[in-house]
């Protein structure tokens, strides 16, 4: 049996996820929003690793690998979008990009 209880690992994962969510909701800088998204993805990966360690299966690490590729693709596209917004609006404030009056 594992030395680290599963509940505490999942609790840490939940805390990190909520912290990332707070960062996404509170911060208005696009770079900071992307970094908070990274924290949230990392927290989900931690939850998968904890579960995989609890059951002694390799599936948790495989899901972490998939989350890793997702994070890499997301960061590439997201930072490209941030660069575009900065060059068109000369700011990184997410609230100032509200010209799309639906």
């Amino acid at each position: 049996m594992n030395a680290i209880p599963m509940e505490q690992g999942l609790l840490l994962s939940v805390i990190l996820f909520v912290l990332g969510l707070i960062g996404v909701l509170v911060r208005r800088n696009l770079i900071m929003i992307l970094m908070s998204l990274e924290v949230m993805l990392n927290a989900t990966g931690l939850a998968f690793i904890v579960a995989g360690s609890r059951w002694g299966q390799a599936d948790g690490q495989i899901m972490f690998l998939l989350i890793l590729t997702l994070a890499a693709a997301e960061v590439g596209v997201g930072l490209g979008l941030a660069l575009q917004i900065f060059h068109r609006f000369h700011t990184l404030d997410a609230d100032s990009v509200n010209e799309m009056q639906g």
Partner: protein
Amino acid sequence: MVLTLFYISSAVAIFATVMMITRLNAVHGLLYLILSLLAAGIIFFLLGAHFAAVLEVIIYAGAIMVLFVFVIMMLNQGQKTIEQERAWLQPNIWLGPSLLALILFAELMVIVVLGGNAETGHTINSQQVGIALYGPYLLAVELASMLLLAGLVGAYHLGKPLVKVTKNRGNT
């Protein structure tokens, strides 16, 4: 023993994440984010997922964070860069992350002295992960490669008109 190490690295991860959210400067936040990811890497190692711990450090804290650093540096060009860098190099800026990194390094030393996997229970080595990855999860690997290709094409497309804009600015 493992539980104590787990608590210490959890505290480091949570503290670094809180500091990351509350930093006003993006580079300072990035320093704390890297610390948070490194702490998560140590937690992965303590959970017996050695392969995931190595990937966390190399890809997350290495490759993806380098992307962030590049973009922040690209967006901060200007005359005031030198004053900014001088302000960033104040000791009270890098003292916090260095202390957290020192704590994580001490944990790593304790793990090494204890003899590698310090009673981490279920150790899942990279061989098992590889066998499962190219066995039942082959379709997921294909899908991940498609996702990475889509990300590559998307990033290329988003980055391409940027050159045109700067060229036009240079001509006029």
